[in-house]
């Protein structure tokens, strides 16, 4: 009887050990899956690659700091080459893999997938900052951790009006003259044009004819010569870096006596390299800090860049890495909050995650993040920088919400 009891106890012990080992295996396998669509080969690969590296590095950081309340994040990151059919196909893969959210990329994939992510309640955090995505009544599951293109454009023009126009010899004698240079056919380039012209009217500018500058342009002399007829005091550049640099170079060499204000995708560390002296004094939008700029989390960003991509020197990294960290960290925060508040369904991630954030500081130099159930613009505060001796210097943080509270609250939402 004693012998039987001993064998029974031994059986129980072995069973307990095996069960514990089995459960440990299950616990280890539980992960939260996130999909990422990036452009590392296509039309926007010059900025997309750095952004993609930033996403992977930020996920490593999130996992090293507890993942989603103890559950590791598994990232499925794919290059879609800026091709919409590929983006749609990869989205279907993310669904099959049971990803709880997607870190998307450009205007094309974001707009193409917007009806689907709305219907399927899939939080989609993109690097397209179009104001069209900020009204939760229309696109509740589209989010981003940056000020939107339209607010950025309004702020850039306002900063020029505040800082540069009073120093112009014509100040007080006539209206300032304003003109836009961008690719008409590009949804991204044309997204904030209506808003910046609205802002120009509000501030009392004369507005000249738009100039169609291709994203592929490296010779923009005809457009610059056309601008010389209008004699603008300030020109808005809505393209990406290469064609913006080409326009600045041609404006410099042809003597267009205008200042330049530039959107965030045309205003990065490559601009002074490509445009040289012609970029001096140009003002632009910074939705977050530039790579290496002092912010509370920058040391970590640099350390993870050095650790996981040691073959790429810091001098080749850019603000786009920081933008990726911002989007990844805001999603991480939303997932942690939602997980604690009941689970990771799309609706819970939106309502109990994103829309509970109030002035949440990511530590990356951008505006603190607020999302509400009626407004997905993170803030009305837009940092505007200037190129000085080849470096970026902050000029002003324009607070659109404080200066035009009524327009901000109503008329400006969603476009």
């Amino acid at each position: 009887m004693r012998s039987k009891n001993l064998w029974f106890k031994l059986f129980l012990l072995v069973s307990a050990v095996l069960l514990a080992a089995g459960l440990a295996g299950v616990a280890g396998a539980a992960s939260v899956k996130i999909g990422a669509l990036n452009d590392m080969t296509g039309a926007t690969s010059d900025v997309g690659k750095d952004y993609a590296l930033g996403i992977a590095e930020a996920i490593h950081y999130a996992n090293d700091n507890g993942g989603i309340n103890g559950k590791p994040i598994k990232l499925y990151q794919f290059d879609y080459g800026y091709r919409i059919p590929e983006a749609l196909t990869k989205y279907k893969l993310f669904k099959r893999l049971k990803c709880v959210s997607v870190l998307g990329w450009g205007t094309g994939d974001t707009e193409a997938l917007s009806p689907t992510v709305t219907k399927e309640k899939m939080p989609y955090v993109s690097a397209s900052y179009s104001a069209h995505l900020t009204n939760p009544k229309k696109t509740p599951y589209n989010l981003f951790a940056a000020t939107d293109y339209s607010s950025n454009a309004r702020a850039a023009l306002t900063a020029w009006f505040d800082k540069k126009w009073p120093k112009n010899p014509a100040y007080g004698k006539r209206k300032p003259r304003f003109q836009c240079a961008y690719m008409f056919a590009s949804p991204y380039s044309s997204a904030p044009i209506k808003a910046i012209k609205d802002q120009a009217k509000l501030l009392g500018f004369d507005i000249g004819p738009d100039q169609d500058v291709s994203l592929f342009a490296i010779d923009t002399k005809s457009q610059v010569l056309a601008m010389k007829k209008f004699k603008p005091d300030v020109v808005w550049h809505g393209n990406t870096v290469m064609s913006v640099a080409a326009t600045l170079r041609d404006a410099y060499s042809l003597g267009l006596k205008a200042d330049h204000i530039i959107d965030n995708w045309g205003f990065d560390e490559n601009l002074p390299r490509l445009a040289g002296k012609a970029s001096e004094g140009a003002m632009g939008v910074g939705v977050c800090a530039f790579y290496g700029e002092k912010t509370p989390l920058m040391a970590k960003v640099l350390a993870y860049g050095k650790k996981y991509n040691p073959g790429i020197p810091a001098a080749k990294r850019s603000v786009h890495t920081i933008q990726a960290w911002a989007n990844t960290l805001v999603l991480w925060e939303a997932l942690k909050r939602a997980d604690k508040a009941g689970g990771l369904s799309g609706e819970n991630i939106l309502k109990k995650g994103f829309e509970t954030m109030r002035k949440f500081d990511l530590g990356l130099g951008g505006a603190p993040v607020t999302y509400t159930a009626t407004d997905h613009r993170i803030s009305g505060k837009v940092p505007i920088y200037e190129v000085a001796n080849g470096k970026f210097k902050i000029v002003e943080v324009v607070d659109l919400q404080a200066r035009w509270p009524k327009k901000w609250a109503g008329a400006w939402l969603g476009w």
Partner: protein
Amino acid sequence: MHKTSKLLTCLAVAAAVALLSGCAGMMTKPTQQNFKAPTVSLDSVEVAHYWGWWYFSKKVKPTVGTAGNYGAPLDLAFIFNVKNPNSYPVKMEELKFTVAFENFDLNTVSSTETQWIPAGKTNQIRVHAMFDGRQSLLSLLVTGGFKLKAKTGKAGPGAALKQLATWWKKAPEFGFPIFVKEGSAVFKADGLDKVVTFKAKFPE
């Protein structure tokens, strides 16, 4: 007799446990000090699939399907040797690199499938890089415009298509240098991790 059988069973189990413990004890435990960096080196590049060179603009009406801007794909396979110099197995979790044709970065590819490399052994890994004619054209135009002008004296779609045709046609005999740049691979061993870099030129 019954008791003897039980006793023998217990002894056998104890012996097996002792043997397994002994084997486990013989294997070196990974530490920060003894974790040597594995190496990744390019073994070869293959044209895995080839369609020649062609480009259709969206003005061309297709026999069936949707009109669009389509360029010939080019599928290259990069085969790497991954050597583990340690006396314990290591896990490779991620490998990524950029591919440049001459000095034009055209593709960044990665492999996130994990694989274990036994102690002291060398594994091989094959990573495919698909180059799409249309997206390579856009890459050349939007990001490589200044470089293309510096190289050929011309820019714009015509110059970019001519450059792509040259590369695609010369690919089967590797008639231009292909660079593997900014390569990095993440290795793990018992909770420790190490990231190694690599680069290569093909043909050498």
